[in-house]
């Protein structure tokens, strides 16, 4: 029964059902607040998809991701509020800015490996945060950026309303997922995965490591920038705290809970955690007392994330039921075994 349900979930046609559900969501949402939270969750999900490119597919744990999100948000915010740009040109500029800065950071940082890369990017993230906080002439420092333009709908729709904005974010989200699904199946995506499987192996296959890693990095920061720009257009007030390193940790948590390196993991992870924290709000200060251990348990007992574990369970089940062919969906899914630490001897 469970298996049939799960099999149904992984069928290609199911995605159209989900798109339909997402389209109809504002109709059966209890109120605008739920639409608002859903939009915010979608924005985060886009950022998580970016993280999935560099960390999930390419195997490099980037801890500056939240910083690039903030750069996207700030670029849009500052251009519209201080320099009088209108939303869409500033939006494009935000994408370009994160791509360019991502390129520079990538070229320097991707020479490092494993923990060194992670901690290096952690520092980059912190520097971004500090610069946003301290470089007052440019960023207004702690005061933050106000009066950010909302996206305009060319006279057709008003994106300052929650529901139209929801559809705008949904459109970007669907585009993001579509692009990643195409990417992950393409030669380029396979190249990234080959790098994750091992630098040496990838090189022996004639893959230019640096070029591909930098490309994956730039793609991921651009996704972060896209999410950040949407975020700025949605909340319309941003401050240096938006670059806080905790946001990066949140993004990683979403990714891990959903299933790292899977196509739908980022979405599932983001939605479940966002709604979980919203429902734990009643605990006020104490919500982390529950959330912290929950996170630990998830990591220990669902190391492949929700989506990853489901797919694995499906495969095992399929085998035990004598279904020779593994479910087709798993073709584009990845496990994280390759990013695993060197087989450690633990007596």
């Amino acid at each position: 029964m469970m298996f049939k349900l799960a099999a149904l979930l992984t069928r290609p046609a199911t995605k159209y059902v989900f798109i339909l559900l997402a389209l109809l969501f504002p109709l059966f949402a209890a109120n605008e607040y739920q639409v608002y939270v859903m939009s915010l969750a979608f924005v985060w999900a886009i950022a998580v998809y970016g993280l999935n490119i560099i960390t999930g597919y390419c195997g490099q744990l980037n801890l500056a991701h939240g910083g690039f999100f903030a750069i996207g948000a700030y670029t849009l915010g500052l251009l519209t509020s201080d320099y009088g740009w209108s939303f869409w040109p500033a939006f494009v500029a935000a994408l370009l800015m994160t791509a360019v800065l991502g390129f520079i950071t990538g070229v320097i940082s991707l020479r490092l490996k494993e923990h060194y890369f992670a901690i290096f990017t952690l520092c980059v993230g912190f520097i971004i945060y500090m610069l946003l906080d301290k470089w007052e002439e440019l960023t207004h420092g702690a005061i933050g950026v106000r009066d950010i333009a909302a996206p305009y709908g060319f006279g057709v729709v008003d994106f300052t309303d929650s529901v139209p904005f929801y559809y705008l974010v949904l459109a970007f989200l669907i585009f993001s997922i579509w692009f990643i699904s195409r990417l992950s199946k393409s030669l380029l995506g396979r190249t990234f995965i080959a790098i994750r499987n091992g630098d040496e192996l990838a090189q022996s296959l004639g893959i230019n490591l640096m070029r591909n890693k930098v490309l994956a990095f730039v793609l991921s920061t651009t996704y972060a920038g896209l999410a950040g720009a949407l975020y700025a257009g949605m909340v319309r007030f941003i401050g240096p705290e938006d670059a806080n390193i905790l946001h990066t940790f949140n993004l990683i948590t979403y990714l891990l809970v959903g299933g790292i390196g899977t196509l739908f993991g980022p979405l599932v992870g983001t939605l479940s955690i966002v709604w979980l924290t919203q429902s734990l709000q009643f605990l006020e200060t104490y919500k982390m007392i529950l959330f912290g251990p929950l996170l630990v348990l998830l990591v220990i007992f669902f190391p492949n994330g929700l989506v990853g574990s489901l797919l694995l369970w499906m495969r095992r089940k399929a085998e035990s039921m004598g279904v020779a062919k593994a479910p087709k969906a798993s073709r584009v899914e990845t496990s994280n075994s390759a990013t695993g630490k060197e087989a450690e001897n633990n007596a």
Partner: protein
Amino acid sequence: MNLFFQQIINGMTLGSIYGLVALGLTLVYGILHIPNFAHGALYMVGAFMTYFLMVDIGAHYWVAMAGSAIIVAIVAVLSERLVFHPLRNSPPIHDKIAAIGILLFLEALVQMIWGADFRRISSPYTGILNFDGLIIPEQRLLIIVGAFVLVAALQLFLRKTMTGATIIAMAQNRDGAFLVGIDANRVAMMTFAISGILAAFAATLYAPINLVYPAMGHVVIMKAFVIIILGGMGSIPGAIVGGMIIGFAEAFGGFYISTSYKDIIAFGLLVVILSIRPQGLFTKGAH
């Protein structure tokens, strides 16, 4: 000129604290390959335990410090047993996320018990030494001396005792350690306990000239990570030297360049150094 020496004292104070925190972090990394993001929370718990023992129980400063060290050591060992041990075969990213879970939990727990208020610990050493205009509050001197004593004690423990030697052995050659019959679990617990004790000592030494509050570990832990990368992950002297470099960079950078940007100095330094030497300052060969 005095202001210059003043910054030296200040750099040493900061460097001592950073070094102690980084030392625990680097031990855990060097031996167990866990980048323990929850280490800052251990530091924070250490400060609160001292506060609890001094204010609520009425213990003397030194007694409270010892008590705090024991409690934090237990917390650290528990986190190893309950969280990191089950995750020992998982990809490294899982360790990091689990550590963040521990961090969130400990912070919320402390806040639930003591609230978010800024708290103060008063040490018995409130005097100020004045050497011809060079001002050294006793507590700062205590920090510097205390850090020196702790590092020396740790070195003695690691070099001169069998238990200490097993820890170093595990770091230098895991298989070799197994072959002589060293128990991996024991070493793992011991390492976590030591890292907890060092964090508690650092927190208790530093708290009297600072404030105690649930979020106090954030900045310290970030810098500790910078330090262990600078000094080479797993290197004990690297942690001390790295701590001093960051302490001095902050003291002098903050004084002669800009206080606002002094926190960037540490991180900027790391970015520059790693850009030139990807393997850190004190490690030989690439990682």
